[in-house]
């Protein structure tokens, strides 16, 4: 048996909920600790080593000064995994990208706005090459265990490029659109076991989209179900702001 791979966890702008989910997964799957050697994890332990093979990064990059730290991780780690929606997409932090940055800073920091050189929140992949992604807000614990298993086998974790509706139908959930709710399931990447519709709520798209989402058709579905244009925009920019802005720019 080869020595256990060394693993480190890092966070940038985020709620740290994905790292909490990792801690939670360790309770469900204590055998994870037999499989990997965690050498740095600020949220869970005080020991700290700067020598690691696999880095899990939570959070989005929201200020120029984050970039050097992210690049330093890339230089040390053989494999970098983006952990959760913020690292993967920019997350809900990116909602502010719909507004003027100076206005945002003034809204948050008042007359100290210029003390904080924040910029548009962006995914980790905007700064460095990311080898794999664990999507979601928060991440799915089963997917984490599967990803670690893949890494142990020398394979890159892969998220099937399928929409959430597939998982939802397999669970025989009654479609939430028939219950008067809005759902982004048709364009959102599956893998969460359709957790929100299973508990009666519409999908908010935290896992990002499948590779060829049909936004136009989904907008029309929402309009048909009486959702206002304003509400549609707000739904689509909860987790997908950067993608929606990039699409608008491309047009």
């Amino acid at each position: 048996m080869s020595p256990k791979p060394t693993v480190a966890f890092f966070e940038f702008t985020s709620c740290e909920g994905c790292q909490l989910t990792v801690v939670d997964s360790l309770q469900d799957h204590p055998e994870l600790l037999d499989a990997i050697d965690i050498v740095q994890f600020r949220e869970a332990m005080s020991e700290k080593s700067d020598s690691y093979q696999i880095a899990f990064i939570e959070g989005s990059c929201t200020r120029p000064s984050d970039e050097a730290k992210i690049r330093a991780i890339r230089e040390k780690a053989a494999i970098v995994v983006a952990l959760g929606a913020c690292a993967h997409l920019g997350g809900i932090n990116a909602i502010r990208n719909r507004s003027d940055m100076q206005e945002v800073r003034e809204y948050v920091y008042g007359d100290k706005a210029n003390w904080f050189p924040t910029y548009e929140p962006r995914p980790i992949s905007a700064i460095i090459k990311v080898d794999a992604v664990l999507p979601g807000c928060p991440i799915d614990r089963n997917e984490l265990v599967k990803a670690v298993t893949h890494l142990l086998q020398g394979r890159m974790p892969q998220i099937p490029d399928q929409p959430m509706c597939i998982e939802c139908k397999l669970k025989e959930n009654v479609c939430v659109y028939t219950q008067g709710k809005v759902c982004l399931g048709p364009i959102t990447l599956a893998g969460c076991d359709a957790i929100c519709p299973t508990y009666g709520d519409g999908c908010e798209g935290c896992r990002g989209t499948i590779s060829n989402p049909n936004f136009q058709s989904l907008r029309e579905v929402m309009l048909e179900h009486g959702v206002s244009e304003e509400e549609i925009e707000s739904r689509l920019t909860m987790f997908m702001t950067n993608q929606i802005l990039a699409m608008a720019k491309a047009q």
Partner: protein
Amino acid sequence: MSFRIMPKAAVPDWITWLRSRYRVVGPRQLKDQFVFDEINSPDELSLDYPTSILPPKKYLLPPTEELFQFTTKGMHTKASLEPRPTVIMGVHTCDMHAIQLLDRVHNTGYADQHYQARRQNTYLVSIECLNPCTEHSFCKDMGTLSVPENFDLHLTDLGDEYGVDIGSEKGEELLRGFASVWDPTEEDYRHVNQVMAEKWPRFSYRFNFDVTELPDLLALSTKSSYWNELGDLCLGCGMCTKVCPTCYCFNVKDEVDLSLTEGHRVRIWDSCQVDEFALVAGGHNFRSTRALRQRHRFFRKGKYQLEAYGLIGCVGCGRCAAACLVHITPVKTFNELYRRHKQGEAVEAQS
């Protein structure tokens, strides 16, 4: 084989009696819809259900099915082939036609062991449809409004009783020793004939052409611009294939535990409507657009399966039409292709 009568009042006792011998599954209410699920007490069973979210196919071809277990040390494998004897209650005639197709598919060429094992341990109790189940069904067009001869028992609602056709030895087994069934009287036969005669006018034809023309219609529509229109509309969500009683495509995955010493191989339902379905090594996708994928789906239902297995691939259950958020339906699609084909012929005749 033979025909018996069972009073409806005896059904709860029959279900309880069956449950002591088999796993019993059947239609059960879930919110305002119905699902096939294990029946734990007779009052959970709703034999007069309209339709179900997933077809009863899921008991023959589970959405996730373990094929075998393995260990990496010594490379031992152990097949997972011990299905529980299961009675599926209340299968509609469209779904019986679908099972007929699945049986043929899984018994052609290399017979599918896992399917066969489940099928042999499955007892099919179908039920005559006396009224259209939903606004989406088109069973009369597809010729699936009568039950094919693959049932073990077939029920017909006669008001206070069920007429029970016994179709096989397995069907007889489900009644053997159960006292509350009796031979029909002349009056019972008259009643059955009346019920059967009265049901047909309640169902309407929805195709603007005869279904025997469907394979040719599709062949002539390969280059129709309608596929691109469907491709623009389609969300690519794949729900149409998940709810389809005749879809059987699957993917195979190996899953190992964290110690990398034990694992299992599973197959899971796949869908031709998702991007990665036709992605092959080297990155080429031979059905790269939603238009091509929708065309493939309709060709498969209306043409390919008929050519490969002698049975048409759509049974008119209407589940895909009900599930589709953008209202892509077989009836609308086939009628529109027919309209365009006729229009094309008319233009040709004028020129």
